């Protein structure tokens, strides 16, 4: 009979689940996030209560036996939120603990290869966000950007934007997951807002008057710098997939 461990969807929750599987010495397990769980008759399920201490012990083992690259890989792949990634992560940690050395580059192992592929996707998405975030200046002088990345990469963006825009207030908000990063010139905090529905329009109520002018200039530049004789729409859409267009002022600026 399969044993299913249901955790709350947090990283510590997953690590707690792994701790408990080790503690109870249970074989044939499945770890599943609460929001993906569908009950089945042929399994026994355990609900995991997230426990920081237990999570820390697993994480310490990862750091002890692996290199930083292993820890990064595990955390970043967790952010993918792919249904079933927990199984790969659990297997990875199991192998890591039994081999007592970094396995991040052992691509011959199916789980390692799979996670490396997922990690590549995460990296791509993170890099896309570095590129596609478009700040708009609000009346409170905050440079505000809304995004909805395929994966939960917002935590990975903090460092880059904090370094680059150290002298301006900024906020990057993940509309899908409903949380954002806000930088107040000292540190970055996690924030939750109720955003107005028309946030994608640059209305005078929220944004500065000059804001729309800069967006127009940008769109104008975007069009002027294109070489028509070399048109290559396929390549264009490969680099800037359509699902991101609604957040890009050069692609999505209406009524002017």
């Amino acid at each position: 009979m399969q044993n299913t461990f249901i955790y709350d969807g947090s990283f510590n929750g997953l690590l707690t689940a792994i701790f408990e599987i080790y503690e109870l010495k249970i074989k044939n397990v499945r770890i599943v996030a609460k929001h993906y769980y569908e009950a089945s008759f042929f399994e026994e399920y355990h609900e995991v209560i997230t426990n920081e201490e237990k999570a820390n012990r697993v994480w310490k083992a990862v750091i002890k036996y692996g290199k930083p690259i292993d820890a990064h890989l595990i955390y970043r792949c967790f952010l993918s939120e792919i249904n079933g990634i927990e199984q790969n992560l659990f297997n990875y940690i199991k192998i890591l603990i039994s081999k007592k050395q970094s396995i991040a580059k052992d691509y011959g192992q199916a789980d390692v290869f799979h996670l490396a592929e997922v990690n590549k996707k995460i990296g791509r998405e993170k890099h896309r966000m570095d590129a596609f975030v478009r700040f708009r200046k609000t009346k409170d002088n905050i440079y505000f950007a809304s995004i909805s990345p395929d994966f939960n990469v917002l935590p990975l963006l903090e460092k880059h934007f904090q370094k680059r825009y150290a002298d301006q207030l900024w906020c990057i908000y993940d509309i899908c997951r409903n949380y954002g990063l806000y930088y107040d010139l000292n540190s970055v905090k996690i924030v939750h807002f109720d955003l107005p529905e028309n946030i994608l329009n640059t209305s005078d109520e929220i944004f500065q008057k000059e804001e729309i002018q800069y967006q127009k200039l940008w769109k104008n530049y975007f069009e002027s710098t294109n070489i028509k004789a070399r048109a290559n729409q396929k390549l264009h859409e490969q680099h800037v997939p359509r699902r991101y267009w609604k957040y890009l002022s050069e692609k999505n600026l209406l009524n002017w």
Partner: protein
Amino acid sequence: MDYDRIKEKLNILADAAKYDVSCSSSGSNRKNKNGLGNSSGTGICHSYTPDGRCISLLKILLTNHCIYDCAYCVTRKSNDIKRAAFKVQEVVDLTINFYRRNFIEGLFLSSGIFKSPDHTMERLIRVAKKLREEESFNGYIHLKSIPGASDELMYEAGLYADRLSVNIEIPTREGLKLLAPDKDRKDFLKPMKKVRNEIDKYKSEKKIIKSTPTYAPAGQSTQMIVGATQETDAEVMYTATYLYKKYNMKRVYYSGYIPISYDSRLPAIGTEVPMMRENRLYQTDWLLRFYGFSIEELLNKEHPNLESDIDPKLSWALRNLHLFPIDINKADKQLLARVPGLGMKSVYKILSGRRYRKLGWEHLKKMGVALNRSKYFITCSSRYFETKDYTPQQIKQRILSEGHSKYQKTLSNQLNLFG
């Protein structure tokens, strides 16, 4: 600010600057010191135009007024187009406002030559200086070295810019004489030489005195137009190799000529842009810089032009079949890099993968190593491999019949028989 006027200028001056293909914003190392922006290591492409090229810098001319009359250039004196000029402060404001909104990585400022080369260069430097000193801007700045600018100005430019570039445009001396009779090759090479010397000097001084001011940390680059004159691929690539070696170029860009003039010395308007050829030249450039090939192996008297239907590495391998097959479980990095179809990423994957176990076809496939070309040139830990002795022509036919090039239409008609 008069946004409509700025918009008009931006239209004209971005349109005129777009033929400069350099877009890179990488290779510099400028940290943010209590100001705005940084540029470190890898660049970021913030958007892509519908022609598929990346936008990473605000690429504009300061002005498109020009005293020269180079046939291949849109801003040539005799061309009847709208002219405009930015004020220094306008460029600074645009750059800062675009940068703060995360539209760009920095500024790429070029210019038509007005009054004199020194006068133009001095104006470009003023923009960069203002950005660095008044706006404490640490983003990327790429300045054009104006052919014929004095050494003093070139020195100053490097203090504010991350990258400097001067485009030699026409690969051969004869071509330059034909299309740009007022220009002399020496004028292009002089600023290049000054910048190289300063970079070398900076590097050696930096080792002793840590506070040496940075000088053009992302090096210098240049560009050549291909397809405007009758030059061969060998001429283009030998010139490029010379520039890489002699002037320590970070990059040489190849830009397929886009017909913009009814001048009889040039391809007529409507002629297709030689994008395929451009692609093959870039592949050759990469083989020279990252794959350990020497130019004589790829292009020589017997083979002055690259094959258009297959990539240059495959083409080289087919001429040198006696060196293959190689065993991917034993061969060293340099040899692996020479296998057609294996990029450096695959090479590194193989190198780290084979530390754990002997690699067979299945492992290679799982790692994502492309086998369609490489399988004819390698053996691995498996009893199955290509045992037949194919002739180079047979291998080529087999590879071509498996793949579909997006340039199929522009390739020779012969292929249609198989397609």
